[in-house]
């Protein structure tokens, strides 16, 4: 570990990509990393998608600007393993087997459950069908176009599961949004901090760690997860095979997976995301219990989309989404 730290410090820089500062507390994580090791972090394209991260790796290959590490959705990770270098962090054994590649080519880092965030001016919402009411005109927004954004797709899938659909067939979810559109309640604009603050998108389907009042920037913001539905999604870390700063990249991974009180896992927890080592940290006591207790309650067994289910959903959306809400 010490040799790694020394080599990384000598490299002095780390290129990261698509890490918005308010997403799962990445702002604090980057600052903490720089403070601890003195390594400068270049953060490119903060609102890029996972595919753009991989594209950047390809187009900037061989330059000093190429991303060193990636934080991407599972679909993109699985499709691009040829670009990554395997690496097993020192806390490898604390990570559940199902959440890492056996050869270490990718490993999940944090996740959350799909939830609905809303402005408290609507009272309390307990079920999705309430959103079809007349006071929600143009109010309900997703985070991104479901045909291209992971969070958008999972938002539709959550509605799908809440309406009685299954993970293999997203049609009920699309129908729900069709109904929303017919009632005039569907917002064609993706939710961002600015639109929420301006009141343009007072109801947002998004990961629970992105529906925190602190992230959203509006103090009267409430969150609920539909009962019986716990649609979870984890992102994955990968290291660029041709990283310009390989030692810094690996040190970053060590930092992210460290169970220390100010290590990556607990910092993600403070950002409202569920770190992948959560179970292990709860049993060995290194978890930040105050932050853990603030996570929204989940009332059903967690469901995670398998790669095939995700692809099927994506294909269905590609063919039917525009018709349903256009």
């Amino acid at each position, binding site marked *: 570990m010490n040799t790694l730290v020394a080599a990384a410090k000598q490299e002095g820089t780390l290129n990261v990509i698509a890490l918005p500062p308010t997403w799962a507390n990445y702002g604090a994580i980057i600052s903490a990393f720089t403070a601890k090791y003195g390594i400068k972090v270049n953060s490119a394209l903060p609102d890029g998608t996972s595919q753009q991260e991989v594209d950047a790796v390809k187009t900037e290959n061989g330059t000093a600007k190429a991303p060193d590490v990636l934080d991407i959705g599972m679909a993109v990770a699985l499709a691009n393993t040829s670009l990554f270098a395997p690496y097993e962090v020192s806390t490898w054994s604390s990570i559940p087997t199902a959440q890492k590649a056996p050869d270490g080519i990718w490993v999940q880092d944090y996740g959350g459950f799909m939830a609905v965030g809303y402005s408290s001016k609507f009272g309390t919402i307990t079920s999705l069908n309430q959103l079809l009411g007349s006071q929600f005109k143009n109010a309900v927004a997703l985070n991104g176009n479901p045909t291209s954004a992971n969070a958008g797709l999972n938002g539709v899938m959550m509605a799908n599961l809440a309406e009685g659909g299954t993970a293999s067939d997203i049609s009920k979810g699309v129908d729900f949004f069709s109904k929303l559109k017919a009632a005039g309640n569907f917002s*064609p604009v993706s939710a961002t901090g600015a639109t929420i603050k301006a*009141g343009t998108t007072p109801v947002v389907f998004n990961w629970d760690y992105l529906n925190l009042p602190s992230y959203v920037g509006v103090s009267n913001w409430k969150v609920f997860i539909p009962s019986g539905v716990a649609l979870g999604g984890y992102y994955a870390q990968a290291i660029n095979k041709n990283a310009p700063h390989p030692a810094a990249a690996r040190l970053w991974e060590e930092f992210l997976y460290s169970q220390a009180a100010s290590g990556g896992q607990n910092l993600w927890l403070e950002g409202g995301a569920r770190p992948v080592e959560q179970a292990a940290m709860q049993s060995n006591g290194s978890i930040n219990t105050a932050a853990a207790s603030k996570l929204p309650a989940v009332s059903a067994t967690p469901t995670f989309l398998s790669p095939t289910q995700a692809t099927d959903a994506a294909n269905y*959306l590609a063919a039917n989404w525009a018709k349903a809400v256009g």
Partner: protein
Amino acid sequence: MAVATTTKTGARPSRSGRRPSVPAWVGTVPFFAYVAVFLLLPTGIVVVDALKNPNGSWAFSNISELGNPLVRGYFIGSLKLCLLSSVSGAVFGAILAYAVASGNPDGVVRRLYISASGVLAQFGGVTLAFAFLVLIGPVGLLFHASWYYDFPWGIGLIYTYFQIPLMVLVFLPAIDGLKVQWREASENLGSSAWQYWRYVGGPLLAPAFLGATLLLFANALSAFATIQAWENQIAYIVPQQISTALSSEVGLSNVNVADLLALGMVILVAIVMTGYALLQRRAARWLR
């Protein structure tokens, strides 16, 4: 000092035997080289990649994908929006250009409007869309336009905002080129204003007007940032779909599809620009 004579185009007669004459077009090589590397080459790469498979082999059958109803839908969407914004931009822009041209050539108003046009023709993207959103969107400061989120009306209005200044910039020289003497001549021969426009001004300006409209059309075709900021939950037009094909996180990413759509756009643009070039040739005859 002896004064050397020059030929008609200002070339000096070459001293015999001293230097082989270099053809004049060589002087334009830097320009053409630059444009070749940074404009023609990228376009060429896109066109070639459109006809390939992800693994690099040729797949000319990709072209048939352009007939796919989903793809056709995007092109129709693009055409609708471009037609709406270019026609409205052209008509209103022409009216504004005429108003500007018919005033004092040194006046404040003319300067204001030309400077504003230079700036606003570039103004677009996130800030423009957001400005309209806060003006006439669901929580609009001015009023709530129920059609604001309807395609192509809402976005058409936003596009018109930068199409009109572009029209002013492009069309004003043509109106300025209408010599005052022609108007006077036709009046002295007894024509009314309507007759002047119908028989003299109109036909003279028509090629320039149509050419400018085509330019506006092509400009709207390629616009992207503005519509993304307006509504990005649904891809209405080809550039949005190209972006989706390039950056999809859910496994639908396909660079070759993106290139194919881009190829379709390049073909469309080629048609439009040929029309523009032909019209320019007609317009040049009178306004030189």
